[in-house]
């Protein structure tokens, strides 16, 4: 499974997850929900414990928090 597939998997299950976990953080790896967490840091720690130094997707469920910027970044 690739990182991009995990991102797509999260998008496909986000609405369903939001029914019970809106605002929480989900850890996705290999197109599986590996756990729900209260914050980014806990999800990151668990990801390191479970998968070591590999790419995972940690995402907040249905809470739009864009890391937007207005500087002249392209």
């Amino acid at each position, binding site marked *: 499974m690739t*990182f991009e597939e995990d*991102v797509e998997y999260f998008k496909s299950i986000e609405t369903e997850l939001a029914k019970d976990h809106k605002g929480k953080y989900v850890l996705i790896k290999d197109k599986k929900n590996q756990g729900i967490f209260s914050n*980014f*840091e806990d999800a*990151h*720690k668990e*990801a*390191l414990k479970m998968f*070591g*130094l*590999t*790419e*995972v*997707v*940690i*995402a907040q469920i249905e809470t*739009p*928090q*864009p*890391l*937007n*910027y*207005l*500087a*002249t*970044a*392209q």
Partner: protein
Amino acid sequence: MGKVTIVKLGFQSRPDPNNPGQRQIVFDPNYGAIELAGQGIILNVAITVDNWTRAVLSAQNQPVPNAIVRPALVDTGASGLALDTSVVHALNLIRRGTVNCQTAGGSRTSNMYFVSLSFPGTQLNSYPFLRAAEVDLANMSFKCLIGRETMMNWHIHYNGQTGHVSIAD
């Protein structure tokens, strides 16, 4: 409480009218204000992997990347920390998700990472765990954007008339 004061000095290098081909250093009290208006608030930051990743690397006897120091723009338009791709590559950061970035050019998705951030040469508090978005700042003099997620802990005094900025936390 930590504090840093940034003073844009009013010294400027100009062609010397009395010696063609030579330059002279002149003091212009307005230059500091002009400099600040043109560049914004820029300070050096040290960036490295977050503390949890550092612990895993150490436990596995893998090299922990040294912190790299880069100029950063204090950007009230940014909600969180953003790093140039060159910083991401230099630290071998591992992707931890994606974030949506709203830019002047439209919406885009960026990779997200976790890092630690400190401010060398100042007493400002460090941040051992921050999320950061990857952006392209290749053509900029700064390689990092410090957003409101960090600024929410700061008191910033910006004197545009004199070119002085102070940041306290």
